[in-house]
C-alpha cells in the first residue's frame, strides 16, 4: 500500500441540481503525509472544500454523488466504509475545524461540556476527558481553564472560540486535522496567533494538517505543499516556495499576480480644498463609546483609508458621517457646513454628493429590483438630475463605465456573480455623480482576482472623475496599493494618521507596527524570514 497518511485519488463529485448535473470536482488527486501541512488554495466555487467534505462523509447524497475515485486512509477506502465506521474515524482519527466557530459551537451548552463530549462520545471515561480538556484549553492559550469550561460560547471572543474549536478537535489526538478557512473570519493579529498555534501543535503531535484557504498569505505562513484548484480541477501542485516563485499554470500566475500589496505606493497629501472635515466626532451606544473624538480632513479627489480591526469603530465613523447613525458629539464640515446641524431638506440635496458602497453586494441590492430599477432609483429620488426619457441611455452608459453590458439592465442581482454585483453597486453610487464615495469593506468579500479587478475599476473612476474615496478596510495590502492617506483606528480612537508611505514604511505607533507585522506576505520566503526574526 502507499506510505502516505491520506491519499485522494481521482475524486469526482457531482451535484444534481434542478438545472442538471454540476461537476463540483473532477479527477482530483492529492496526498497528505504525517507531520506535513498541505494547503488547498482556490477561490470560491473552485471546489476546494468538496474533497474535505468527502473525507468526512459530509456530502449530502443526493443531491451530491461521489461517482469516481477513492480516498485511502490506513489502507482503507473511506468512500466504501459504512456510516458507522465513519463515525468511529470522524473526530477520533480525522478532526475538522471550521471558518465560523460561533456557528459550530452550540450556544446553549457550556464549552467545557461540549469539549468533553467529543471524548465521551467515543467511549472514553468522563474524568479522563475532563483532565484532557483542561490541559488542552490551557494549551491553546485560554486563561483560567477551570473557569473557562463553565462559560458559554458567546462569552468568548472570535479568536478564543477558534482556539476552543482547535482544542475540541485535538481532544482525541487525531492523525489528521482538516482546517476549512480557519482564520478567514478573524482579525489579522488574531489570525497570526491562531496560525502560530496550529503550527506549534502540529510540531508537538506530528499530525497531518490539511488547510483549505483562499489566502496566499496563509499558505505562505503555514503550508509545506500547495494544491491549487480552479473550477473543480487541480491545476498545480508543489511546495509552497515552488508554486509561489515559479508558477507553471496560467491560473496560478494570475492568482499570484492579483495578490495586492506589491505595487508602487501613491504619494499622499493633497493641496486641493478640503471636502470633509471631521472635528471630534463621537458616538456612544448606550454607555459604550464606539467612537471617541475623531478628527480628520478629506480633500477633494483624495483617497483616505481607514484601517483597524473589527470593533475599532471604523465603520461607525463612516456611518456617523453619512448620518446613518446619529452622532453624539462633534461636527462634520462638508465644504465648510456642518452636516450634523443641517435640516432635512439641506441634507437631502447633499446626500447625492456622498454615496456609499457596502461590503456585501448580495445584501445591499434589493433582490426584487432589476438592475435598471436599482440604478434609476437614484434619479427617481433626486428628480432634477436626469430626465426620465434619458434613464435608459444613462443606465446603459453607467453599466458600460463599470465594465458590464448595457443589456444587463433587465436582469436581477441574483443572476450576477459577486464581483459583477459589486460593479452594479458601484454604478448605482455613480448614478448620482457624487464627489465622495464611502467604501465600507467594499472588496473584502470578493475573491483575490475579482478584488483586483474592482480595485482597478475604482482606480479608473478616481482618475477619470476625480472622486474622493473614504476607503474602509481591514486588508492592509489592498490599502497599501490604493490609498493616498491612511487612518489607523483602535478601540474607537484614531491612533495614527499619515500618508500611505509614512504608515507603511515608517509607522510611529506601536499598534500600527503590530498591525503591520501581523499581516501575512504571500511570499513564503519573506514569511519564513519574519518568523525567524
Amino acid at each position, binding site marked *: 500500500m502507499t506510505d502516505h497518511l491520506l491519499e485522494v485519488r481521482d475524486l469526482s463529485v457531482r451535484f444534481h441540481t434542478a438545472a442538471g448535473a454540476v461537476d463540483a470536482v473532477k479527477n482530483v488527486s492529492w496526498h497528505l503525509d504525517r507531520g506535513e501541512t498541505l494547503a488547498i488554495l482556490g477561490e470560491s466555487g473552485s471546489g476546494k472544500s468538496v474533497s474535505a467534505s468527502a473525507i468526512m462523509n459530509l456530502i449530502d447524497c443526493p443531491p451530491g454523488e461521489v461517482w469516481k475515485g477513492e480516498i485511502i486512509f490506513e489502507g482503507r477506502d473511506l468512500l466504501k466504509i459504512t456510516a458507522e465506521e465513519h463515525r468511529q474515524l470522524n473526530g477520533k482519527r480525522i478532526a475538522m475545524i471550521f471558518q465560523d466557530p460561533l456557528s459550530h459551537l452550540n450556544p446553549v451548552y457550556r464549552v467545557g461540556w461540549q469539549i468533553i463530549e467529543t471524548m465521551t462520545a467515543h467511549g472514553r471515561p468522563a474524568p479522563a476527558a475532563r483532565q484532557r480538556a483542561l490541559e488542552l484549553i490551557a494549551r491553546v492559550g485560554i486563561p483560567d481553564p477551570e473557569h473557562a469550561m463553565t462559560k458559554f460560547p458567546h462569552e468568548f471572543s472570535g479568536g478564543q472560540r477558534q482556539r476552543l474549536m482547535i482544542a475540541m478537535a485535538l481532544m482525541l489526538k487525531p492523525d489528521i486535522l482538516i482546517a476549512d478557512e480557519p482564520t478567514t473570519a478573524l482579525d489579522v493579529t488574531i489570525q497570526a496567533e491562531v496560525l502560530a498555534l496550529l503550527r506549534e501543535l502540529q510540531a508537538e503531535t506530528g499530525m497531518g494538517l490539511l488547510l483549505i484557504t483562499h489566502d496566499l498569505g496563509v499558505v505562505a505562513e503555514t503550508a509545506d505543499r500547495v494544491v491549487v484548484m480552479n473550477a473543480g480541477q487541480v491545476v498545480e501542485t508543489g511546495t509552497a516556495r515552488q508554486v509561489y516563485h515559479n508558477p507553471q499554470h496560467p491560473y496560478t500566475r494570475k492568482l499570484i499576480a492579483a495578490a495586492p500589496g506589491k505595487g508602487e505606493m501613491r504619494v499622499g497629501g493633497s493641496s486641493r480644498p478640503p471636502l470633509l472635515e471631521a472635528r471630534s466626532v463621537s458616538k456612544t451606544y448606550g454607555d459604550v463609546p464606539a467612537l471617541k473624538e475623531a478628527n480628520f480632513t478629506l480633500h477633494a479627489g483624495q483617497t483616505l483609508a481607514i484601517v483597524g480591526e473589527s470593533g475599532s469603530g471604523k465603520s461607525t465613523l463612516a456611518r456617523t458621517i453619512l448620518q446613518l447613525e446619529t452622532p453624539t458629539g462633534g461636527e462634520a464640515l462638508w465644504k465648510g457646513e456642518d452636516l450634523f446641524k443641517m435640516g432635512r431638506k439641506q441634507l437631502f440635496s447633499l446626500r447625492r454628493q456622498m454615496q456609499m458602497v457596502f461590503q456585501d453586494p448580495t445584501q445591499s441590492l434589493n433582490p426584487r429590483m432589476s438592475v435598471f430599477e436599482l440604478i434609476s*432609483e437614484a434619479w427617481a429620488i433626486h428628480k432634477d438630475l436626469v430626465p426620465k426619457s434619458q434613464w435608459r441611455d444613462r443606465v446603459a452608459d453607467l453599466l458600460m463605465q463599470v465594465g458590464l453590458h448595457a*443589456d444587463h439592465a*433587465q436582469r436581477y442581482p*441574483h*443572476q450576477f456573480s459577486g464581483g459583477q454585483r459589486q460593479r452594479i453597486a458601484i454604478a448605482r453610487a455613480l448614478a448620482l455623480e457624487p464627489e465622495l464615495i464611502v467604501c465600507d469593506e467594499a472588496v473584502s468579500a470578493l475573491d483575490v482576482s475579482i478584488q483586483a479587478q474592482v480595485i482597478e475599476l475604482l482606480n479608473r473612476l478616481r482618475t477619470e472623475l476625480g472622486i474622493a474615496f473614504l476607503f474602509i478596510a481591514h486588508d492592509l495590502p489592498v490599502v497599501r496599493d490604493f490609498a493616498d492617506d491612511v487612518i489607523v483606528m483602535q478601540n474607537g480612537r484614531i491612533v495614527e494618521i499619515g500618508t500611505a508611505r509614512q504608515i507603511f514604511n515608517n509607522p510611529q505607533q506601536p499598534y500600527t507596527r503590530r498591525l503591520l507585522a501581523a499581516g501575512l506576505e504571500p511570499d513564503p520566503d519573506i514569511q519564513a524570514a519574519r518568523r525567524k526574526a
Partner: protein
Amino acid sequence: MIETLSNADQASRTSPRLLPAVRMLWRDKFALAAAIFLLVAAGCAIFGHTFLSDAASSQNLRGRNSPPFSVEQGWLFILGADALGRPLLARIIVAARNTLMIAGGAVLCSMAVGAALGLVAGYTSKFVSQVIMRLADVIMSFPSLLLAVIVLYMLPPSVTNLVIVLAITRIPVYLRTTRAEVLEIRERMFVQAAKVMGASHLRIIFRHILPIVAPTLLTIATLDFAFVMLAESSLSFLGIGIQPPDITWGLMVSQGRPYLSTAWWLAFWPGLAIILTTLSLNLLSNWMRVALDPVQRWRLEGTSQNNSAETAND
C-alpha cells in the same frame, strides 16, 4: 445559458405584460386549476343570484333531504336537497356571493389595516410601536367570538357589520407578522443603501420593505380565508350573523349538522366548497409567491437557468 436568458428577456419585452403571467400559470397545472376554480366561484357569486335565487328558496317538502346523484327532479338536485327540499346545488351557487363577499372583505380589510399598522409599528419610534402592539394585545386577549357577539348584539346583523367585526378580530395576526418582518428588513443593507441615496420614508416602506413582506402576508391571508368563513358560520349559527333566508356556505354547514348521520350531503357539499376555495387560494398564492420573486421565477419560465452556473463568467 446567457443566450437563452436574453432570449427570454426579449420575449418578455416584446409581448404584452399579461402574456408571461399566463404562460407561467400554464406551467404550474395545480395553480391553473385553482385559478379556474376561483374564476368559476367568482362567476357564481356574480351571476348566481340573478338566475337561481328563486330555485334556491323554493321549498319542496316532498323532496326533503333527497339524496344526491339523481336527476329525477331536475339537474339542480344533482347534489341532493336540504331539510326543506331546496336544491343544494342552487343554494351553494347563490350562497357564493355572501360567503365570498364576507370572507374576502374581512380578509382584505384586516390585511390592509394590519399591514399598515404593522409597517408603522415596525418602522417608527418605539413609543408608537408599543402603543400599537398593546392595542393588538387587547384584541388578541379578548375572545374574538365574544367580541363579535357583543358588537353584533348592539349593531343590526348585516354583511357590512359582519365584515367589520371579523376584520377587527383578525387584524393582530397581520400586524404582528408585518412588524416582525419590518424590524428585520429595515436593518438590511439595501434599505441602508436607499437611505444613503436620500430615499424618503415612504419610498423605503413601499418600494423596499413592503414587496419583501407581501408574500408572507398573502400566504397568511389565504389561510385566514378559511378561518373567516368558519367564524362567520359560527356567528350565523348563533343567530347574530347572516339571517335566513340569506345563506352562506358556513350557515349551510351548520344547518346541515343535525342531519349528519342521516343526510350527510347537507353539510358535505358546502363544506367541500369551503375547502376547495381555500385550497385554490393556497395553491394560487403559492404560485404567486414564486412568480413574483425574480430569484425563483425561472422555475416557471421553463428556461433551465442555473443560478450558480452563471457566477463563472465574471
